[in-house]
């Protein structure tokens, strides 16, 4: 683990020593290695290391902690702060129906997360409405309809010959008429560099004025996470992030990369394929796993 590695780096320094430039440098190399192995973006890691260095320099080695433990403590605290400090929930205070739009790359877990959020919201006494807006992927609409019926949540009767912008607009209208309190728009996966499909999202946003736009990303995403997240955020000004497939052994450094580049809160994590496998994001837990 990182704390073991840092302890061995600092084992000569005890009690009354000081963390200085020289002994910090070697420790920071270990931290940088841990971050890169965890898929934190190269530049994000470099900036993070700089912050840790500034905090660590000149600190007295506390008697109660070994220098290695001290550096770990600083790194851990900085990570938690960068990941958002504390959990942040959905913005549910507006006048209903609240519109939540899910966006992201192909296969990141949007459709499953839409259904998970619907279940989560109903358990919070909301009346959710699921909207399949993916007309491209074979059986995408059936997929969300099946998940919706599994948990007894109503869904808009989309069909693949409809236009996604019309689907979303009509579904929000339907929700308003039927007094649903939250509408969840499941959009098709797309590349951030696909201009036409990115403009489709801009059009859906403009028509439906979502209260939340959640960028859904796979926990195992590598260095490219910053490019994808930056582009989605640039065009849509997302309001939150969901990290899926977090119950595996992916270290999840993409969390730090995405948060740094968008400055938007990570709101939920997906921890399995069941519709109950959704958790509110806790920065301290993710910080520990990034460090390994």
């Amino acid at each position, binding site marked *: 683990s990182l704390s073991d590695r840092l302890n061995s780096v600092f084992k000569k320094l005890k009690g009354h020593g000081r963390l200085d430039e020289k002994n910090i440098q070697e420790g920071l190399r270990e931290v940088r290695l841990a971050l890169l192995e965890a898929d934190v973006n190269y530049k994000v890691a470099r900036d993070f290391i700089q912050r840790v260095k500034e905090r660590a320099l000149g600190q007295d080695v506390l008697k109660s902690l070994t220098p290695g433990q001290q550096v770990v403590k600083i790194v851990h605290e900085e990570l938690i702060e960068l990941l958002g400090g504390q959990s942040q929930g959905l913005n549910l205070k507006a006048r209903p129906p609240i519109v939540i739009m899910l966006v992201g790359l192909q296969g990141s877990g949007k459709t499953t997360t839409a259904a998970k959020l619907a279940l989560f919201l109903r358990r919070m006494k909301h009346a959710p409405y699921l909207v399949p807006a993916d007309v491209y992927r074979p059986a995408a609409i*059936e997929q969300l309809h099946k998940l919706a019926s599994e948990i007894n949540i109503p869904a808009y009767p989309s069909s693949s010959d409809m236009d996604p912008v019309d689907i979303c607009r009509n579904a929000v209208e339907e929700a308003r008429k039927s007094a649903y309190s939250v509408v969840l728009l499941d959009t098709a996966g797309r*590349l951030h560099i696909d201009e036409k499909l990115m403009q489709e999202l801009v059009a859906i946003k403009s028509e439906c004025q979502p209260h939340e736009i959640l960028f859904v990303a*796979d926990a195992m995403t590598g*260095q490219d*996470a910053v490019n*994808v997240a930056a582009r989605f955020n640039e065009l849509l000004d997302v309001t939150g992030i969901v990290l899926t497939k977090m119950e595996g052994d992916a270290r999840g450094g993409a969390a730090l990369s995405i948060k740094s580049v968008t400055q938007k809160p990570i709101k939920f994590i997906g921890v399995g394929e069941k519709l109950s496998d959704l958790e509110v994001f806790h920065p301290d837990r993710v910080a520990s796993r990034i460090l390994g």
Partner: protein
Amino acid sequence: LSITSKFDDEFWEELEEILIMADVGFTATQKLLDQLRPKVRKEKIEDAEGFKELLKQELASLFPEPRKIRVSKPPEVVLMIGVNGVGKTTTIAKLAHRAQMQGKKVMMVAGDTFRAAAIEQLNIWAKRVGAGFYAKEDGADPAAVAYEALDKAIEEGYDTVFVDTAGRLHTKVNLMDELKKIKRVVSKKHPGAPHRTILVLDATTGQNALSQTQLFSEAVPIDEIVLTKLDGTAKGGVIVAIALEHNIPITFIGLGEKMEDLEIFIPERVVNRLMG
């Protein structure tokens, strides 16, 4: 890379940054640089052109040739495995389309009986490709689906059978056991099957692809890797790290969501993808 004829510290640092940002990973990057440094001296590389050629060859040499498949008795059985959402089902459609174009009689088997509308998804692809299709009900035992599909494929003279499986995280022991069972049942049913077990990896995945490759290959021997979603901006450099630890050929790359969006993997092109 900055055009340079000086292979100084700055040059190697810049190269390290490029490779890590391409998802090659820290450790694999160091291994690669350790191999390159002495060669630059020994082969008297003088400029960026010469270096690029050296890097191209060095990278290309990491990737093993795809092996010749021996099918003692048709059909050839191809098993698609991988974690959730990487593109297994879509890649089956692409491979099936390619096989159809080569004049083969192809069957697509709905071995994902778990995920919502997985069977419907593959069924639509089978219709588009014009291939045969076999499925049972949702929740059926995937090994039973594969077994019965093979019965039909053998009887009806199919050349190639593609078996789709549910996405599964490599850390889930019960799901790895299920995979072992599918392989066992298929190999008992038909000599040599599965002739090709293909691990599908997503090019946007970082270092976790190493763990995926390791744990999947501990469950079932992997014959090929297909790397999907290279039409995005991810470079897929983790294949270098995988090549340094495993001897699994990469056969195809996925470049989009249509059945034609499949290309043969060419090792000599890796350098352009990582550096470009």
